[in-house]
């Protein structure tokens, strides 16, 4: 029941997204713009551009993800159907799960398109691609689930566009720190244990978020 309802909600979100072509295009464009702005901000003559890649990549994904999160519940809110979607036969869980998956799809596709662009723009190569891809996957999962939770909590809050990053970014700090470190280490020939311990931290973070987010969401939205 949970999976079936989640799939139905996700299908609906994907259909709305495909028809309106609103959020995803802007997210991608915004990510590209971030990379350009970071290039203006951080590139110095005589310094290797490749050194900026980890920071630029992860901060861009953080910012672009926020664009998606701010519109994640827009359809329910504008249609006035939020309280219905929260009260499915499987409780409020399908809503959070489908929104997390939706955000994960958006940010995943953005990342796949963005990564080559960043590498080309900053003249960099990934010496070890596997840990970076693993870190990106773990980071995006954490961002999607926690982001969907915070977005769901803040739906009716005034100034939520401002408050969402204010709450989310400190909470995402471990993922950002670890993700950047893994990417830095993967650019060189770092020992595998160091990379693995950072990846382990990210996996632990995701586990904590996955274990607590549905419960917290249910406690807050259930009457």
């Amino acid at each position, binding site marked *: 029941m949970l999976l079936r309802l989640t799939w139905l909600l996700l299908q609906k979100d994907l259909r709305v997204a495909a028809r309106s072509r609103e959020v995803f295009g802007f997210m991608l464009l915004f990510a590209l713009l971030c990379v350009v702005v970071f290039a203006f901000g951080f590139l110095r003559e005589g310094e290797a551009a490749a050194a900026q890649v980890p920071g630029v990549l992860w901060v861009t994904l953080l910012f672009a993800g926020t664009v998606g999160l701010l519109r994640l519940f827009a359809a329910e809110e504008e249609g006035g159907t939020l309280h219905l979607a929260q009260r499915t036969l499987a409780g409020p869980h399908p809503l959070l799960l489908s929104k997390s998956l939706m955000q994960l799809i958006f940010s995943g596709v953005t990342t796949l398109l963005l990564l080559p662009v960043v590498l080309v723009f900053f003249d960099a190569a990934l010496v070890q691609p596997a840990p970076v891809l693993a870190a990106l996957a773990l980071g995006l999962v954490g961002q999607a689930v926690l982001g969907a939770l*915070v977005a769901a*909590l*803040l739906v*009716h*809050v*005034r*100034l*939520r566009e401002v*408050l969402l990053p*204010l*709450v989310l*970014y*400190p*909470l995402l*700090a*471990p993922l950002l*720190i*670890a993700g950047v*470190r893994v990417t830095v280490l993967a650019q060189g020939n770092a020992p595998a244990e160091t990379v693995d*311990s*950072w990846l382990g*931290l990210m996996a*632990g*973070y995701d586990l*904590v978020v996955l274990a*607590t*987010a549905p419960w*917290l*969401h249910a*406690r*807050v939205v259930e009457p």
Partner: protein
Amino acid sequence: MTPPPPLRPTGFLALLGVATALICAALYCVAFVAEPDAVLGIVQKIFYFHVASAIAMMLCLSSGSLLSLVDLVAPSERVDALARAAIETGLIFAVMVLTSGPLWARKSWGAWWTWEPRLTLTLMLLLLATAVTGIRAMAPDGTGRKIAAALASLAAPVAYLIHVAVQKWGGTHPMVLKGGGIQSPGMQWTFRIALLAIFSFAATLWTLRYRQRRLEQRLLNLQLEISAQTVRRSRDGGLT
């Protein structure tokens, strides 16, 4: 409806008295009893209030997070008021730590700020606590409490992970402050008294804010009761 017993300020006033006396004693000890540090000189005296504030901040924020969890599981206005007061008191001590910290760091490390693990964690806690407090103000009536409680209870495990991450991250920096190192009895006694002074000060602020929240809640409940009575009376009387 029987009116609730009045909230008498006796406990709060007693705490205020104790805190005032202890802070005076601590200031005296810091100025006259504790010897200046052999290496760092007089600036080391920030330590007494700085470290005590940091401990008070951690205690306030962690109990605020725990109480928020309790309020989420078994909602109670009393626990909500306690949790909220704890987080706000923790916020004040976070500001104290982040003000006294750089003053000390400038003298002993030569920089106002370094991305040392403990500094980073304190800054993140300050940002999180501010955001959680802000959400309450921005949320529509009644919902802010649950949202803030959910985020505050999530903040504790995440804060632990932030701690782990910044420790690993800070591991690449050579400058890590080593705690301890106060040996003379004068310094030890000063630290103990400063600790008690800051703790009683924290308890005073906590109680003050808690009382204020409880009075607010009572006022709100009274207003609801009165408007319900008015509706009932106009309905019964209006028919004649």
